[in-house]
């Protein structure tokens, strides 16, 4: 089992190495086989391992490969750890990952740089698996940074356009701000507890810290900082909408299903620490609440199909944070899983739509695609329904319901959290179906029928099924998380269900029955201003531009001339001045020289004679 466990991340890594080193000699088909095949094998291995794992009574598996580095009392080893949480994450990553790889083999077939795409994608899967399987926090950080790097590489995949490069760098740098916070949190943990291994840390922390100890709160806040960066939560959410510059399957895999949920995984994995830090945990809930509302609000006015989905992703991860903040760890992971299914599906579907519309992203220039793209419409509808949490039918309903009920049952601020979640759910349902109605209903803008091979259809169909029925998959987590008693009031369930339906009805009212053109020119000024503010993601970019980017650039430009060098230049100038002064003495008048000699001799002699 240990060997199998190591095989899971090493298979995609091997795929990456083969593509990177020998890929130039492979034909496109070969690249596809290596790229998708390595992840497929990893998925099979993961499934086999999961079966063995559950059969063996869900006991954690530890697989040691060897030391990484050790110095003094510090040690970081290549050790993997598989428990119920890691099994679920591994299955989602390899499973959804494989489907997206398979989809990509056909979807990206026209790309010249096919090999680079699959190499990056394989490296990403390997790093993501490392992240969720790591036994110690340093190895986790390896995966953590690795996925960030792959995200950067894939957002900037079409790097001829500088805008893509900018989006890629923005994603990397903004998440790195969080990473630094996380790193400091790890250091503080190490200094306090002398350990980087996760399980001993989790076991040792309650013995060492009292609940609410200042240091414990600080550690939890720093870890939250890392999670906020990676998972695009307030206030570091600004990178994700721009990250849509990458290919759509990349958005599906990295910026919807897996990497952006790494922050949720991290907090869930380290939940005993947050249980010891009630203030920080409340902060998790509040961050989640604020994010889900802000992002949903911003999603209402987006016109770019991928940006709608991006804001929706931010918002949905906000729900997961909300769940984490109220201690409903299992509900957060549940929503993570269902979200991975339906959001991956939606991004892949959006990619299909964009391709069909010849790289048009604006939903108001689309319409009636239901007739020409029936298959895509079908699966997209399943995904959108799940996102909107259509009651009792979809996976998204069950997972979101759990979160809302948990929020309602929270000991503090329960009403606020629940109310916020419900308002978010209303907006979610509205923007999901605003998208569906605008793109797929109305008069067709094109008569071209869609073509899709089985490598595109099969993954979409599977994800469609999972988006609907995924809520029925049992997620055993009882060994990892403590029991959580959520409220089960039927009234709250009905309220949540009603809100989702109301949102869809509202969307039909505004965007289905009527067909707004998206033209804003004849809107009143306040509405245009509001629209623009919403569309810009509430102006965070502009604020950060003024507060961070401009000062940094100005400082860098101002310092380019090297202030320190001025001091050196001063020394040089003084020397040159002295030189000019003394050079004047050498004027060619021999008698002056002779006079100098005489005066010098006298100056030397006089003291000798007198003293």
């Amino acid at each position: 089992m240990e060997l199998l466990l190591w095989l899971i991340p090493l298979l995609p890594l091997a795929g990456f190495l083969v593509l990177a080193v020998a890929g130039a000699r492979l034909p496109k088909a070969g690249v596809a086989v290596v790229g998708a095949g390595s992840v497929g094998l990893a998925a099979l291995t993961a499934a086999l391992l999961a079966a063995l794992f559950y059969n063996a009574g869900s006991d954690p598996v530890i697989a040691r490969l060897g030391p990484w580095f050790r110095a003094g009392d510090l040690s970081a080893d290549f050790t993997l750890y598989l428990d119920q949480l890691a099994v679920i994450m591994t299955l989602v990553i390899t499973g959804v990952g494989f489907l997206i790889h398979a989809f990509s083999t056909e979807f990206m077939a026209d790309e010249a740089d096919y090999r680079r795409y699959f190499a990056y994608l394989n490296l990403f899967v390997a790093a993501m698996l490392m992240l969720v399987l790591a036994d110690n926090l340093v190895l986790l950080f390896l995966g953590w940074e690795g996925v960030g790097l792959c995200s950067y590489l894939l957002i900037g995949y079409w790097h001829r356009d500088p805008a893509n490069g900018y989006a890629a760098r923005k994603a990397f740098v903004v998440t790195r701000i969080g990473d630094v916070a996380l790193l400091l949190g790890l250091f503080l943990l190490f200094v306090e507890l002398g350990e980087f291994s996760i399980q001993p840390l989790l076991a040792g922390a309650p013995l060492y810290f009292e609940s609410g100890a200042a240091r414990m709160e600080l550690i939890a806040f720093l870890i939250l900082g890392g999670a906020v960066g990676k998972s695009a939560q307030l206030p570091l959410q600004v990178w994700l909408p721009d990250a849509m510059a990458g290919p759509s399957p990349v958005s599906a895999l990295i910026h919807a299903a897996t990497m952006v949920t790494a922050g949720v995984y991290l907090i869930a994995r380290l939940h005993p620490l947050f249980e010891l830090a009630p203030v920080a945990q409340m902060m998790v809930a509040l961050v989640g609440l604020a994010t889900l509302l802000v992002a949903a609000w911003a999603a209402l006015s987006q016109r770019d199909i991928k940006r709608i989905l991006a804001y929706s992703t931010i918002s949905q991860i906000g729900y997961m944070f909300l769940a984490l903040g109220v201690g409903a760890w299992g509900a957060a992971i549940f929503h993570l899983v269902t979200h991975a299914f339906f959001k991956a599906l939606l991004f892949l579907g959006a990619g299909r739509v964009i391709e069909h519309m010849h790289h048009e992203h604006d939903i108001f220039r689309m319409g009636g695609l239901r007739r020409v793209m029936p298959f895509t419409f079908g699966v997209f509808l399943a995904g959108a329904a799940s996102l909107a949490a259509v009651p009792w039918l979809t996976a998204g309903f069950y997972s979101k319901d759990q979160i809302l009920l948990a929020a309602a049952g929270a000991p503090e601020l329960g009403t606020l959290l629940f109310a916020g979640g419900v308002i978010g759910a209303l907006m979610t349902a509205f923007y999901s179906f605003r998208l569906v109605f605008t793109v797929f209903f109305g008069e067709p803008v094109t008569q071209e029928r869609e073509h899709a091979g089985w490598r595109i259809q099969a993954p979409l169909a599977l994800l469609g099924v999972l988006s609907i029925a995924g809520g029925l998959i049992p997620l055993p987590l009882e060994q990892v998380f403590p029991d959580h008693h959520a409220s089960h009031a039927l009234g709250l369930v009905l309220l949540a269900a009603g809100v989702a339906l109301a949102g869809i009805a509202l969307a039909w009212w505004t965007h289905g029955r009527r067909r707004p053109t998206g033209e804003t020119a004849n809107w009143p000024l306040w509405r245009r201003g509001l629209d623009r503010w919403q569309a810009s993601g509430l102006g965070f970019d502009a604020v950060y531009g003024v507060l961070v980017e401009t000062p940094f650039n100005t400082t860098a430009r101002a310092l380019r001339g090297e202030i320190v060098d001025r001091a050196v230049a001063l020394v040089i100038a003084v020397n040159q001045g002295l030189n000019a002064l003394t050079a004047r003495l050498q004027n060619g008048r021999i008698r002056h020289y002779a006079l100098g000699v005489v005066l010098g001799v006298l100056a030397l002699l006089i003291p000798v004679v007198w003293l």
Partner: protein
Amino acid sequence: MTTIPLEHALMLAAILFALGVAGVLMRRNIVFVLMSLEIVLNATGLAFVAAGMRWGEPDGQVMFVFVLTLAAAEVTVALALMLQAVKHYGTLDLDILRRMRN
């Protein structure tokens, strides 16, 4: 034979030396500067000889021979340079020759 006291000899040497230095500093004509230098050298030579007499050592006279040799060599080179200077510039005035610098 009465010996000349050392003080007198040194006094004479000092006067000669001062005269020589004054000449070097004040004359503009190279020939006079050179002659003044000779006076300076001979003043030191005189001081050496007088000191040698006083201690009954030959060292003073040996040094004088050195000084003479030096003076001879110096005059040779300097006169040669002077000839060239006259040939090229037609003057022996130091302040005019100073322009050679550029």
